[in-house]
């Protein structure tokens, strides 16, 4: 099941226990899988049409009268088309609207730059009162949806297009909003990742151990705001080198949040940010784009080697093994 589908099912389950939950979509119920909730509780589902600003405005109004609205649309529309409504109608009033943004990052691939969303974490992080979560997979999406339901303020959960491979085997790994999860131990360097890059970072860490003998810690920083300062500083002190990896611009997202913490601490460390380097993504299949921007396991391996100045000899044997 994809993260989107899991979200739809978890929301349906939660709605059985909490009558305050309502669902909203801007004519993308099927694409964002909130249609599962629509089918489950049609009297509590509202399609506002292709009007994302209204989606957020209506959700704010519903929250104002005591409901818990879950508003779903594509990340690009939630964070940019409806930016002002999210800020002023929802965050300014600190209303408990939960925004589930699908097709985040470059996961929309061939749909192009208009549908890519590599700025949303920076935008949402800058809004006061907003909680920002980027789950690593569907299971973590389920945990995140449950965790934000009772938050008194707004939350933004960013997920992908639905083809993302699973990372966790079950939900019992101690998910807690604002608390990073160490998903691979290490002492030479720490990769701080979120979303789909968590799995890639762990795969990279395994390869770096096998091939280069490097001990690389990986933190799943699922909550970008409030960020886990303690885990970041522990990594700075214990591994002295930090690489952040995100499917986002390196400006203002996870890398920016981690850099803020380190700079404010006064501690020094080797530091690098993987992501889009102040540019718009090319148009192509998502996996092509992840590889191009070095966000897949092999790209992360390259960046770790560069940060640690480890030389690596390319394999130039092209004879078929038969």
């Amino acid at each position, binding site marked *: 099941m994809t993260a989107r589908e899991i979200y739809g099912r978890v929301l349906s389950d939660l709605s059985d226990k909490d009558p305050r939950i309502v669902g909203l979509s801007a004519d993308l119920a099927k694409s964002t899988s909130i249609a599962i909730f629509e089918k489950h509780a049609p009297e509590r589902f509202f399609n506002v049409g292709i009007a994302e600003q209204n989606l957020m405005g209506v959700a704010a109004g519903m929250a104002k009268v005591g409901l818990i609205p879950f508003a779903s649309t594509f990340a690009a529309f939630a964070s940019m088309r409806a930016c002002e409504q999210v800020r002023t109608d929802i965050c300014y009033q600190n209303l408990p609207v939960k925004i589930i943004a699908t097709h985040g990052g470059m996961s929309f691939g061939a749909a192009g730059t208009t549908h890519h969303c590599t700025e949303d974490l920076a935008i949402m992080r800058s809004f006061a009162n907003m909680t920002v979560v980027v789950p690593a997979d569907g299971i973590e999406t389920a945990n995140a949806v449950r965790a934000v339901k009772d938050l008194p303020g707004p939350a933004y959960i960013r997920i992908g297009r639905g*083809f993302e491979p699973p990372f966790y085997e079950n939900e019992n790994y101690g998910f807690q909003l604002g608390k990073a999860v160490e998903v691979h131990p290490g002492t030479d360097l720490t990769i701080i990742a979120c979303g789909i890059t968590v799995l890639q970072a762990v795969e990279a860490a395994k*390869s770096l151990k096998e091939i280069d003998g490097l001990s690389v810690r990986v933190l799943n920083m699922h909550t970008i705001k409030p960020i886990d300062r303690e885990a970041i500083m522990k990594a700075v002190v214990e591994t002295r080198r930090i690489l952040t990896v995100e499917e986002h611009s390196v400006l203002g997202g996870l890398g920016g949040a981690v850099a803020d913490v380190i700079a404010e601490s006064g501690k020094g460390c080797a530091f690098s940010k993987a992501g889009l380097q102040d540019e718009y993504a090319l148009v192509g299949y998502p*996996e092509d784009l992840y590889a191009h921007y070095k966000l897949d396991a*092999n790209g992360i*391996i390259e960046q770790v080697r560069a940060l640690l100045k480890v030389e690596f000899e390319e394999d130039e044997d*092209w004879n*078929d*093994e*038969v």
Partner: protein
Amino acid sequence: MDREIMIAKLFFRAAFPVMKVPLADDPAITNAWKDVKATVQFSADCEPGPDTDGQSRIGACLHFDNGSLEVVEELCESPDLTLHFGSVKAMNTLLSGGMALPRIRGGLKHPGLLVKMLTLLMRLTLMLPTNRPKDPVKRYLKVKMSIYMITTALSNYNRLGDPKMREWTANQPDRIYQFTIATPERDDNIAAYLRIRGGRTKSGRGVYTRRRPFVHFRFSSVDGALKVLLKEVEFVQGVESGCVAIDGSPEYAAKLNDFMAVIQGMMT
């Protein structure tokens, strides 16, 4: 390249080397070939042209040496046994499981070698989609041989210049397409890979460890793999039913699957 010549070369380069699998893993075959030192040649008449380096015959020699096998894609001077075909198409027909009669030289002098060779050729037919073995050893062999053959065939389909394959591989950075089949009943899993970089290709056995796979086809078991290979389920159904899981790009996995289907169509 002429289609029949290309098919013949795929057999030489991808199917013949797969005989190493039964030579190593099939006790009856291992035993039969353990003390054999001989050269067997497959050849066929053809129109001289650029695809054949101007030669009027193409062929390959199989050098057996006490259980080991080396395949050389050229005619040799004094093979112990020769299976010669009047046309490349006739040779391809036989190798793909059809009926075609070769002229056999050396069969009277080495009748035992001929019988062993025909038995070994029969093992190759395990890879045919119509062959549905019940015996667990043969089911294991079928999967292992098929995966080895298809990865090598994919690599050579590109090397031999198929335009669509060349176009597909041309712009890819260093990428591994990994195939693994879980075989918990044995010590080692079946694994093979195709590596692509900027138009170059390489097939390999086992798990490629220097890079993470771009696409990883993970078959749950020999039985799961067989369901897909025998087309008892379509590939998509195979994913849905848990016979195979795909890590990585679904679009590239689908494209590779398309090429595999094309090659399978050529060789069966």
